[in-house]
């Protein structure tokens, strides 16, 4: 045998050995542990970015889910079922999300997953959940058609299409605006918003300019100059609060004095902190209004403030509601994955803190869209 052949065989051998080693290390996933006192443990997995650029969203959602799980365990509403939370980080990378889903399903043996956070993460993880028949509910992945064709995938958030279309209607009918410019960020979120807003606005009124920016951009003046030339009445920003605040400031500096509109990505106090005067009067769709006086909302806001020392944002609220939907499913149907799936799918007019929530046959959410306005340095509900 030549030396080279020997080496090839050695290479193959090492690869196979590694495979077997990992196989031995990986025993079958643990079964739902039934304690001696007859309690049943239901494992809830969460997937989302806890590090990296999108960490803010993932951490807020995880905090809210923690609160919901603690409350459910403390209140004893589930009888002999106790909930255990296992969270996995993706760093905002969808291929890491695929690993996180497989680990939760095959190593930790979770019964239900709350996640993922970013749409691309949920896209990557969804097929794994479907194969393993583990119900998964995303609190924030808004991309179009995400849950279609996957009976194990649900979401609890405003879809981009619905909120953009409703804001366009509101802007034309209630605010009497006629000429729209659209400025969107080039990711799945921005593109979905832009398409929905453009379609509705073009039907009801006129779209005079469409420009694009990138996440993390700082200078928006070239695009804003073009938008200014087209002389619009209103500027719809399809993006997140950091960029939106800067866009508002730069538009004001350039004398582009139009009505600003936006989506749920703007609904964070940081918009006002960064934008200051410039974001005054901005209208944005939202799924959550923290100053809502109903007791359920105030209880959550207070519990969150007490535990984490900051006001919960929309991501946290949707995460809390997603956890409540899961807990409700366990309460009404049962603790096995299949029963939880049925329970989530049967959700109808569920009184969450983000409004009445129903799940349709595609796994999508039907809920009211709120419209908030920035007035005197605060978000105020106008619809």
């Amino acid at each position, binding site marked *: 045998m030549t030396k080279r052949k020997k080496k090839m065989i050695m290479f193959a051998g090492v690869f196979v050995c590694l495979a077997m080693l990992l196989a031995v290390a990986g025993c079958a996933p643990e079964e739902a542990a039934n304690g001696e006192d007859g309690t049943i443990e239901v494992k809830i997995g969460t997937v989302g970015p806890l590090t990296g650029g999108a960490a803010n969203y993932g951490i807020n959602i995880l905090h809210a889910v923690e609160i919901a799980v603690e409350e459910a365990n403390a209140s004893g509403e589930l009888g002999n079922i106790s909930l255990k939370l296992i969270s996995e980080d993706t760093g905002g990378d969808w291929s890491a999300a695929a690993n996180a889903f497989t680990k939760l399903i*095959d190593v930790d043996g979770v019964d239900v997953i709350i996640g993922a956070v970013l749409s691309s993460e949920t*896209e990557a993880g969804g*097929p794994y959940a479907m194969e393993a028949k583990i119900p998964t509910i995303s609190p924030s992945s808004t991309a179009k058609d995400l849950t279609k064709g996957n009976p194990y995938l649900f979401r609890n958030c405003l879809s981009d299409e619905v909120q953009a279309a409703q804001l366009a209607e509101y802007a034309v009918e209630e605010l009497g605006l006629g000429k729209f410019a659209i400025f969107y960020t080039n990711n799945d979120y921005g593109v979905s918003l832009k398409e929905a807003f453009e379609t509705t606005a073009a039907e009801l009124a006129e779209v005079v300019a469409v420009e694009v920016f990138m996440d993390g951009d700082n200078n928006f003046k070239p695009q804003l100059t073009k938008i200014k030339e087209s002389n619009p009445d209103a500027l719809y920003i399809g993006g997140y609060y950091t960029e939106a605040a800067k866009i508002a400031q730069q538009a004001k500096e350039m004398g582009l004095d139009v009505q600003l509109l936006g989506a749920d990505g703007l609904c964070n106090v940081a918009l006002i902190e960064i934008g200051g005067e410039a974001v005054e009067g901005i209208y944005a769709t939202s799924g959550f209004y923290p100053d809502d006086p109903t007791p359920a909302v105030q209880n959550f806001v207070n519990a969150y403030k007490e535990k984490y020392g900051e006001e919960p944002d929309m991501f946290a609220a949707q995460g809390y509601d997603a956890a409540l939907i899961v807990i409700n499913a366990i309460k009404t149907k049962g603790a096995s994955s299949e029963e939880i799936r049925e329970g989530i799918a049967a959700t109808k007019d569920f009184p969450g803190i983000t409004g009445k929530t129903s799940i349709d046959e595609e796994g999508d959410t039907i809920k009211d869209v709120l419209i908030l306005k920035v007035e005197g340095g605060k978000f105020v509900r106008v619809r």
Partner: protein
Amino acid sequence: MINPYYMQLIILVGINTIMAASLNLILGYTGQLSIGHAAFMSLGAYSSALVTLHFGFPFIISLLCGALFSAIFGVIIGIPTLKLKGDYLAIATLGFGEIVRIVCLNLDITGGAMGLRGIPKKTTLLWVVLAVLVTVFILNRIIKSRIGRALIAIREDETAADSMGINSTYYKILCFGVGAFFAGLGGGLFAHYMRFLHPKTFDFMKSIEHLCMVVLGGLGNMWGAFIGASILTVVPELLRSVADLRLLIYGAVLVLMMRLRPQGILGPQTDIAPAIEKIRLKFKSIWHRLARGKT
């Protein structure tokens, strides 16, 4: 049966081994600092996925289409950029990587910012093992041949190689093409495993990750590519349990590694036996020292 999670890790180690081995040919053997390797991966991934989705070709044909498409781009990019050296080449390949990412982000056919979904799952462990063996076999044959000696000569001293009659530009482009071919193959396997593609993954950091695998394992060493790929795939997963500290520890491992063993784990030897012998001797001496200390 193997737990699917560990199966997935093995498959990812295999794909990363292909990526690291192909970069090793460019970086380790020819000495060309390319930091756009993820771009070739994404070209292979997207083109093979699109071929599968639109024409329904058998898996092997899709893979080859992806690899060839990537190789063609490797050559096209190689012709103008490989006249550059060192840092300049690095910047040019960096630029190329960004161009590919932005193009994938803006084309309709690649799904743009929404990502490409619905790719059928075809990659299995068998396919990956076969692909790794074929890649390593072919790369080994190239390195042991006249071409390989020419590449190593270019790495050691390009001017001297030129004066010996080696057409250095030709060989550099050839190695770029071959490297891109196998990177495209890795990309194709990745696409048909993940069932979803998004340009965000194939960014600058992915190229750096491949670079780390090669440097960590040992430049100019095929075993090094395998070991580097294994470590940098498995360690981040092992560190999942420590959540917040994960990136910190990962970074510290890399820094310590480069401080203690800058030549990589295996160093530039082409054979693994002497390296293992060396490690064994080192452990033995440490053991002796410890044993002496105890008594």
